[in-house]
């Protein structure tokens, strides 16, 4: 029996590590590296890491240590990792979350413990409205907003008969709601597909029958790849225009190829932006990783810069929570998207653009900026946030 006890004890105590004061500020990144969506977390991580590397291990002049863990897109695992980061590594800053469900499981609990959470992507409405929190900041967008941009774009284009396709789940319906908030024309049809559906032949046939002016689609990740390929094969590419929120980021384009040409998508950033911060970011990212950064990488990079700006303000002393929060609220950092500030719910107030997928001169498939749709646009839930 003693033998077993000893063995079990050894296992438990193996990763013993003590936090010592005066060490670099630890930042815990809970992100999705496995599952089909693993490349999103990879982009965010690489963007964030680039900012740390460019500062030679420092953010805002303060030495930092980045701890990365894969949540496997599971809320349960996200919670477990947060627990480990906070209890074992004494992390006071968390970031990285890609998906709303993980954020919803992790954020409320950790902010109650006084930890700061800077989301580089996930922005569920529940954390923007009544459930907003003093310690939660989002540097990307509230989930609906990118669809609002497309809604406004459709209205501006004078479309009057739009077909809607989205998966039958919360983010899908939120996005459709966001689209309808700014779209003024008629609806040719509305179809909700199964989450993770692979084959869209049935939906595309029905869509063709409905003969709409344009199609609004919200199909993130692999669903979007499947849909775009099948849409082109059905001979509808270029016949009925496609538009949707940032579904067609750079790495997805690589998987879809020419079938994506013509898709209009919305974003708050583009690799073409001509400001000093963005030029430096895009060039450094390409040099380090050999590919063009996507929207998600830009968000990871901005999250790092934001944290750096606040760390500088408190001189790396994470015990000065109020000063740290105040510095975050100021958002005093050179965002790669240009102008950037926080609303009172700690979600961005920023400009939004539409981009179109085109074939570039060298035969690559890239996003080209079409124009600005919203200026200083807040999200739809900010008013419900009780924060002052």
């Amino acid at each position, binding site marked *: *029996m003693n033998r*077993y*006890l000893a063995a*079990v*004890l050894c*296992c*438990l*105590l*193996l*990763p*013993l590590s*003590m936090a010592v004061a005066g060490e670099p500020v630890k930042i815990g990144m809970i992100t999705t*590296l*496995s599952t089909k969506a693993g490349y999103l977390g990879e982009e965010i991580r690489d963007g964030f890491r680039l900012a740390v590397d460019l500062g030679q291990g420092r953010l805002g002049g303060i030495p930092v240590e980045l701890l*990365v*863990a*894969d949540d496997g*897109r*599971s*809320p*349960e695992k996200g*919670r*477990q990792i947060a*627990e*480990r980061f*906070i*209890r*074992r590594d004494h992390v006071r800053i968390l970031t990285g979350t890609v998906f*709303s*469900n993980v954020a*919803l*499981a992790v954020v*409320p*609990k950790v902010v109650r413990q006084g930890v700061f959470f800077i989301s580089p992507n996930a922005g*569920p409405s*529940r954390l923007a409205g009544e459930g907003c929190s003093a310690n939660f900041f989002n540097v990307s967008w509230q989930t609906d907003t990118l669809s609002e941009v497309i809604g406004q774009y459709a209205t501006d284009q004078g479309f009057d008969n739009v077909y809607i396709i989205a998966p*039958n*789940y*919360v*983010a899908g*319906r939120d996005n459709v709601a966001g689209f309808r908030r700014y779209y003024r024309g008629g609806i040719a049809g509305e179809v909700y597909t*199964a*989450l993770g559906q692979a084959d869209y032949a049935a939906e595309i046939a029905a869509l063709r029958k409905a003969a709409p002016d344009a199609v609004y689609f919200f199909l993130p990740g692999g669903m979007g790849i499947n849909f775009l390929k099948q849409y082109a094969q059905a001979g509808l590419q270029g016949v009925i225009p496609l538009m949707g929120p940032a579904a067609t980021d750079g790495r997805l384009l690589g998987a879809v190829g020419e079938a994506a040409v013509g898709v209009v998508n919305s974003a708050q950033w583009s690799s073409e932006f001509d400001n000093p911060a963005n030029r430096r970011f895009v060039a450094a990212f390409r040099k380090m990783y050999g590919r063009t950064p996507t929207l998600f990488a830009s968000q990871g990079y901005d999250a790092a810069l934001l944290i750096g700006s606040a760390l500088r303000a408190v001189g790396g002393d994470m015990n000065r929570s109020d000063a740290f929060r105040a510095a975050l609220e100021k958002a005093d950092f050179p965002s790669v998207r240009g102008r950037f500030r926080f609303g009172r719910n700690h979600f961005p107030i920023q400009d939004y653009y539409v981009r179109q997928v085109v074939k570039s001169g060298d035969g690559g498939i890239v996003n080209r900026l079409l124009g600005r749709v919203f200026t200083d646009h807040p999200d739809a839930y900010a008013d419900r946030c009780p924060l002052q």
Partner: protein
Amino acid sequence: MAAETTRSGLVFCGGCFLLLLVLPPLLDLAGQQYLLSLACRALIYGLAASSLNLILGYGGMVSLGHAAFVGIGAYTVGILARSGPGSGLVAWPLAVVLAMLFALLTGAVSLRTRGMHFIMITLAFAQMVYFFFTSLETCGGTDGIPLSGRNLLPGLDLNDDRVFYYLCLGLLTLLLFLLHRLIHARFGRVLVGSRENEQRLQVLGLATFGHRLLAYCLAGGIAGLAGALLANLGEYVSPSMLHWTRSGEIMVMVLLGGTGTLAGPVLGAFVLLFLEDYLAMYTEHWMAILGPVLILVVLFARGGLYPLLAGHGRQR
């Protein structure tokens, strides 16, 4: 399956129990408090795996849909908690009853089949539950339901992690004891007999179908309780609890620990969860290690880890 009645089996189980009993202060001493919630999760999964073991290990019913019961239990707690944390005395029994009811309905159909058909039909029912909850907006869809706190129980503050841990340990011990009694009673003998040779029992005039269905419902109910506990532990209910890979993981726990042994599934839950956690800390490609480890266990540690550790061959 008489392994735990032998001396070394008893010593092993007793040792483990004592270790679990002193685990919280031990972790405090080592400054590893964060492991408490992982241990707690392992206890709960151990409960779910034990319930699967009842039908799988003793009854020979290989169900690949056990996550459905866990999920139903968790969602019961989640839906009731939407208007604030309610009493556990209401939510938990309801979770058990609903999971049993689902087990009764699906079991009545599934148990008509055997072998691989049974594996697949349980999987199909679990998939139905998965799609049902992900497409229901009132259940939070794919986002799941965040809880504002743990359930309330008279005299116990469940929001204290240590209290919750001891509650889980207590429930697990109690249910393991009851399962032990059940299996060594006539019910258990019929169940095991129906695995070995159903026709002979039927000739003897024993209603094996009824016994099997009852075992199926009991297993469902216990898994439902595990789901309710899991929802409380994470203060979150999500459809990922219902995903078919979760059913697979619970089955892995049973096999890893040792099918048809009382303590095996709990051991399996601890080993799998801790292994996952440690591997993930050292490499992001932890699944490339975990996969082959599972295969090696199947190939070389026949009968799971429990007989190996407690010094037994599998006794079937």
